[in-house]
């Protein structure tokens, strides 16, 4: 089994490595100090399993799982027990609490091996929802672009557009695609800040410059940078409710 260790603390990586070297048929293919390196390692090296810390700089364990969960099994390794329930909701193989014994790690690996053959389709959307505490809204969006990862704070998003099986996040003049439905994006974002103005558009209301009436019952939203977005009748009602 090919394993990658992901933890921002060197000592924490060291102990996992120490436990793993004694095991037969386990090969450590990468040690990653942050989530970006982890995504890159998954893309380039295709490991079977990630031993993944949760609290890491910039890109946390749940965000890594959301991005690469289709390709790799995950065992979470963390000092926090509060994420355990959410970890199993997103089909993590196991959840190790620091510090742990070599035996405990071995058991987790046996589980992972059992799962390798029978991997289920991976619910990326559920991961995204489970990564947030209940009631909290999305604060940043992690988007994978091959081996690279873009992290966009939601405050920088201008609008989100549906494009077939993808959604396109528009921010700072660029568009980044992510495989997700617009409905899922809508329910993850703060409804006081982001409004579904149209079947295919979610608008950050801070970017709204003015609303124009261009046909009966039909409006267009003009953004600060001049972009025009269509506003449906129900979208207009939602917009009015939020702006009031």
């Amino acid at each position, binding site marked *: 089994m090919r394993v990658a260790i992901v933890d*921002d*603390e*060197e*000592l*924490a990586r*060291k*102990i996992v490595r*120490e436990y793993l070297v004694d095991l037969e048929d386990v090969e450590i293919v990468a040690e990653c*100090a*942050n989530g970006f390196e982890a995504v890159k390692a998954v893309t380039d090296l295709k490991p079977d399993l990630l031993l993944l810390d949760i*609290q890491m*700089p*910039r890109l*946390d364990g749940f965000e890594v799982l959301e991005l690469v969960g289709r390709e790799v099994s995950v065992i979470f390794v963390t*000092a*926090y027990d509060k994420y355990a329930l959410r970890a199993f909701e997103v089909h993590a193989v196991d959840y190790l*609490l*620091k*510090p742990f014994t070599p035996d405990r790690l071995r058991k987790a690996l046996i589980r992972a091996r059992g799962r390798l053959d029978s991997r289920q389709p991976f619910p990326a959307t559920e991961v995204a929802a489970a990564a947030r505490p209940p009631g909290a809204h999305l*604060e*940043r969006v992690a988007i994978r672009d091959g081996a690279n990862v873009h*992290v966009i*704070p939601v*405050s*920088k998003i201008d609008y989100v557009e549906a494009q077939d099986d993808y959604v396109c996040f528009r921010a700072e003049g660029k568009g980044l695609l992510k495989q997700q439905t617009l409905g899922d994006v809508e329910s993850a974002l703060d409804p006081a800040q982001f409004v579904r103005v149209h079947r295919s558009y979610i608008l950050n209301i801070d970017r709204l410059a003015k609303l124009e009436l261009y046909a009966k019952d039909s409006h267009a939203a003009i953004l600060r940078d001049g972009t025009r977005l269509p506003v449906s009748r129900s979208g207009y009602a939602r917009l009015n409710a939020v702006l009031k």
Partner: protein
Amino acid sequence: MYVTAWLPIATLLTQVLTRGGTIGWREAAAIVFPMCLLYSFICQASWYLCRAVPLRIAPPGQRFESETVRLIGSHATAAVVSAAAWVAIGWVWASIIGSTFNISGIASRYVTQMPMLFISGVVLFVIAVAFNYLLITFEVSRKAESKALELQVLAREAELKALRAQIDPHFLFNSLNSISALVMADPAGARRMCVLLADFLRGSLKLGSKERIPLVEEMRLAECYLDIERVRLGARLKIQRDIDPECEACLVPPLIMQPLVENAITHGVAPTIDGGVVSLQAERNGAGVRIVVENPVEDEAATKNGAGVGLKNVKMRLANLYDGDARMDVNQNAGRFRVELQLPCDRELRT
């Protein structure tokens, strides 16, 4: 006790009744004393009325008059009704005495004194009402006093609880994990880490139970905490200290810096990939002492927030302990997060 207070009143009323010269004092006493006993209970019942119509400072404006009218009206009605009923019962009583002891005409002689008795009844009722209001006010202020005392005790308890809750258990779990990792590769380092951890725990338990400690001890504890975190975070954490020996003897509340350094690690250094410098400074500032904790901070929007609880606690503690003589300033500038405390430099405990 209450009933004996009515004895002088009964005596007085007997005098009133004999005044007309038509009733002898013995007869008068026979009528008045049971009547007073009865009236004492009626007046006591007015307490419920006072409770139902509390004295209020009317809000400025139109409501004042209606409030007053309601108050006076209800009590006046109650006074007139009770006094009238009382006098009527007195008449029945006088008739009973008259027929039982065969004293002819006592009831009709009583009737001549009825207006006088009625007025006394009203006056007594009003006095009782005033007395009741006095009692109620007294009770309210006593309750407020005990409530204030209770709040003081609660605030103190909250303060102690805050102190105890300040050590984040995940700090312990992460440290134990570091020790576990060091055991094989660097046994001496593992031992050093155990000692650091023991020092820190012992220090925070010991210091936490005191009211004030010298700044030098507080600094030592903060540095001990940072040394432990440096084992965990490695080269990502650099520490800079600049402590003026002048202010080492100043007395400060124990663990007042702990939330600041913890904040500097969990929200400053730990969420950054490259880490940075946490700096501790302390210097004299006039009659006080200025303590500054600074740490690097990621672009605000890109980090998940959650900071601020610890800092809010510090601010509240300072407000509680120094009553406005201490302050905490927080600012963020050019990637640095800075918390500054200004405390009076006490050399002995304030009371």
